[in-house]
């Protein structure tokens, strides 16, 4: 399964206009271990780096969509393409689209979400997303070998999620 992760090409570059890089920094949480230390990034951009002002994160994983709050039970999960929502302490809601990757919740309530590609929902061009979806559908029907078919299916699933997230 994870070998697919390596083969998915730069899907998001096709749909995203600009990738806004914003590493959110926050004041140290005086309350101590109650908050979660949230790190979320992709190889190209780090959105949150050990941020402590995050209240909740909704994550799409292959074992289901999970909502992570501070003091969540430690777990590991594989990220699924889809929409990721971050709820900050001051009621700001940031939505992202992620391709695939890993989710880690540690015992000390620190959360690391590493996505192979991720960008803000606002940065996605709906037109490009829809045309990408059509192209992926064509690719799937034209796929010959097993490997091609799997790649096309991955691309298709990703684009479906992106279009769904935009609605």
């Amino acid at each position: 399964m994870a070998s697919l992760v390596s083969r998915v090409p730069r899907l998001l570059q096709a749909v995203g206009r600009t990738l806004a890089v914003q590493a959110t920094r926050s004041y140290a949480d005086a309350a101590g271990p109650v908050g979660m230390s949230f790190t979320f990034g992709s190889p190209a951009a780090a959105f949150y780096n050990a941020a402590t002002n995050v209240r909740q994160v909704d994550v799409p994983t292959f074992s289901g969509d999970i909502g992570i709050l501070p003091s969540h039970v430690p777990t590991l999960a594989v990220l699924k393409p889809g929409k990721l929502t971050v709820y900050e302490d001051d009621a700001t809601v940031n939505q992202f689209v992620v391709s695939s990757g890993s989710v880690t919740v540690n015992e000390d309530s620190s959360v690391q979400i590493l996505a192979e590609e991720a960008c803000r929902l606002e940065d996605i061009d709906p037109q490009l997303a829809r045309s990408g979806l059509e192209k992926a559908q064509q690719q799937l029907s034209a796929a010959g070998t097993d490997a091609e078919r799997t790649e096309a299916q991955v691309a298709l699933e990703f684009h479906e999620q992106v279009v769904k997230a935009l609605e």
Partner: protein
Amino acid sequence: MHPCCGDGLFHVPEIEALLAHASWVRDEHRSAAMLSRTALFVPTCTQVRGMATLKEIRNRLKSVKNVQKITQSMKMVSAAKYARAERELKPSRPYGTGAAAFYDKVDIEQDREKPRHLLVTIGSDRGLCGAMNSNINKLLKNYVKDNADKEIKFVTLGDKARQALYKTHSEYFMMTYSNFGRQPATFSDAAEVAEAVINSGYEFDVGEIYFNEFKSVVSYNLRPLPLHSLESVSEADSLAVYDSLDAEVIRSYQEYQLASVLYACMKETNCSEHSARMTAMDSATKNAGEMIDTLTMQFNRKRQAEITKELIDIVVGAQAQDE
């Protein structure tokens, strides 16, 4: 540089060569000259004291100037690449720390006494980048020497390691990647290496990634990061803390983390390489500049000495005619 004989006068070698023809001076000077010369090489030219001809100095000057141009342009190219590499390093650092965080928290012990070791080293293809690659090569050699009783395999990125070690240590090389360092590393590169390591079928007990961590423009550090095999992660005690894990999730997770960690290390290496090359070429350019200054001085003095010599010829000849 004119050597000064003991009498404290400033001697011009060409004039002395002329004076040496006068017999009453000849023996003393020649013996002194020969004594001083036995320690040096004997010059093939007729000029005295190992000083090159005007043409040789001019050629040398020309070649050093060319070298300076080359090193200067290499420095600029490296500076541009370094700027880009540093920019791309910024988001990849938290990415790498995030990827390694799980292993830190779980704190899996690597028992170095176990027999099978895997070393992944990240270097560069091209040289002139400081001590980066030689540090890695030295480390590999010493590792093999210190662990002679274990089974060790290398996976090297960057041609330099292969060039240095393949002849003598070919049995240790499992895989080597070239064409690394020219273009900035991408996640797909890291994923390719990770996939190859996992699919190689080599079941290692102890694994380490060695790379040059970028500290600042003038400094970088050779650092290891632990590389855990699937077995050691699955069998770790602290893994029980993590909820709802099955073998599939652990395997996928492990593969992705390996690619992520490799990606972060590659980015650091890129940055170190370009900054090291930039500083190396910068000091090479400065040195070349100094050499050019010295040679130009030498050239001018030589040129003036020759003019003086010709003048003396003319004056002496004229005087002889008058008499």
